[in-house]
C-alpha cells in the first residue's frame, strides 16, 4: 500500500474519525494503560451484558497511532464476549489497521493493555479473580 504519510489510509481514517470516543455514563469496567510522561495514555470503559461487551468508549492522549489503535480496538471488541475480547491481541489490532510503522507498534500493545485493564476491572467488580 502506498502511503503518503507516516500512516496508511486506514490508520488515518481512524485518526480522523475515531469510533466510540468518550466515557460511558455507568461503565461496568474502566481501564487505563500508559502514562502521560511517556506521551501515551489510553482509557477504555466497557458496558457488559450477559458476558458480551455491549458498549465501549475510549479516550486517548497520544500520537496518531495511539488514537487509531484505541479506536480500532473498540471496534474489534464491540459485541464480542469477554473471552473473545481477551483473545484480541495487539497484533490483531495492528493488522486490522493494515499495519503500523515499527516504531509505533507499542501503541497497539497499549490498546491491548487498556482493554485488558478494563476487563480486569469489570471482573473485579463482579467479584471474579
Amino acid at each position: 500500500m502506498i502511503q503518503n504519510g507516516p500512516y496508511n489510509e486506514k490508520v488515518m481514517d481512524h485518526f480522523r474519525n475515531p469510533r466510540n470516543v468518550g466515557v460511558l455514563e455507568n461503565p461496568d469496567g474502566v481501564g487505563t494503560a500508559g502514562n502521560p510522561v511517556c506521551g501515551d495514555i489510553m482509557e477504555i470503559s466497557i458496558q457488559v451484558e450477559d458476558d458480551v461487551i455491549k458498549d465501549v468508549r475510549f479516550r486517548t492522549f497520544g500520537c496518531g497511532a495511539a488514537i487509531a489503535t484505541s479506536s480500532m480496538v473498540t471496534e474489534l471488541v464491540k459485541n464480542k464476549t469477554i473471552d473473545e475480547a481477551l483473545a484480541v491481541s495487539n497484533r490483531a489490532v495492528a493488522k486490522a489497521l493494515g499495519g503500523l510503522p515499527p516504531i509505533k507498534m507499542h501503541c497497539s500493545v497499549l490498546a491491548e493493555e487498556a482493554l485488558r485493564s478494563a476487563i480486569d476491572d469489570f471482573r473485579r467488580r463482579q467479584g471474579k479473580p
Partner: protein
Amino acid sequence: MDTKPIYLDHAATTPVAPEVIQAMLPFLEGAYGNASSLHSFGQEAKAAVEAARTRIASFMGARPEEIVFTSGGTESDNFIIKGIALSRRDRGNHLITSSIEHHAVLETCDFLRKQGVSVTLLPVDSNGLVDPDDVRKAITDKTILISIMHGNNEIGTIEPIAEIGSIAREHGVAFHTDAVQTFGHIPIDVDELKVDFLSASAHKLHGPKGVGLAYIRKGMKITPLLHGGDQEKRRRASTLNVPGIVGFGRAVELADASMHTESSRQSALRDRLIKGLLSSIGDTRLNGHPVRRLPNNANLSFAFVEGEGLLLSLDMEGIAVSTGSACTSSSLEPSHVLKAIGVPVELAHGSLRFTLGRDTTREDIDRVLQVMPGIVHRLRAMSPLVRKGAVS
C-alpha cells in the same frame, strides 16, 4: 485539500529559492567538471566554487580561506568538535557545551565521552538562555573547546555568543557556535561574535540540502574528519559538490539582500501567531525567550494533547509544522530542549513548532489562527487528561 499548502516548518528545511536553482543548473548541465581537475572543465568549476566561498566569507566577516565546505550542519559540528578533541588532545580533554544543543553536537559529545573526553553540559534558564558566568565557572585548565549554539532550533532562543566569546578568549579556550538556525536569518560577524569555529547548513536558508560549511579561524589547527584527497587545503577531502556550493553562495547572496526586511516582517507575523494562539486557546504556553528569539520561530505547548495528533490534524488542513526538531521526530522521547527549560513532560508532549519563512504571508498565519482552536478542542475532547469541565 483544496487550499494552498502552508509550510511552517522552515527550521526543518526551506524551499530552495528559484534563483538558487537557476544558479545551480549550469553546474549540473554543462560545467560539470571536478574542481580539482587542471583542465578547463575543472578550472571553470573551481572558479565558481571560489566565487561562492568569497561571497559567503564576506557575508560573515571571514576570509575565504577560513571557509571549509562540508555536507551540512551535522558534518560541520562533528568535524569541528571531534577535530579539536583530537588535535588538542595533548592540551586537555574537557569540552563545555549546553544542554539544549542540537543532537549533532550532543551526540558527538556523547561519543567523545565514551572515548574518555569529559564533557560539561551547562544548564539554561527557563527561557533557554545559557548564563555566560556558568561558562566562565566551567572552564578548567583542561578545557579545549566551548561549543554553544547561536540560535536554538526548537525554541528559537538566541544565545549570548559574543559574551561567551569574550570569556573564551580571556581564558584562551577555542570557541565554536552552531549557527545552523541563524545563518542567513540574523546578522553574523565572526569577529563580533568572537568565535573561532562556526557551523552552517545551506538548506536552512533556501539553499540546497547536502552542503554546509565549517568556519575555521585562521591559525586554528584541526584534525580532518574526512581524510583523502587534497581538497579544501587538506581540511576536508572529497570531490567538491560544485552545484551545491554554488547554490549555497547564491542563497547567501539572497539572504544578505533580504535579511533585514525579512527579519522584521517575520517577527511581526510570528508575534501575531503567538498572541493569537495564546489568546484563543486556553492552557497554552510559549516556549523560549519572549524577545531574544529567532524572527521566524514560535514554539507553544498545548496542555492535555499530544503533538503528533496536532501535527497530523494540521497536515490534513494543508499546514506543515513540527513537533520538535525534525531529526528526532521519530523518537518517542519528549524534546530535551523543552525538558531543559523546565516544561513538564506531559506538556512537552503537546508542543508544536511553527517556523516561518520568506514565503509566509499574513493570510497563512491567519489561517493557522482560524483552524488551531478547533483542532485543539477536538483532541482535548478525546483526552483522558482533561478533567471534566477543565477546558471548554
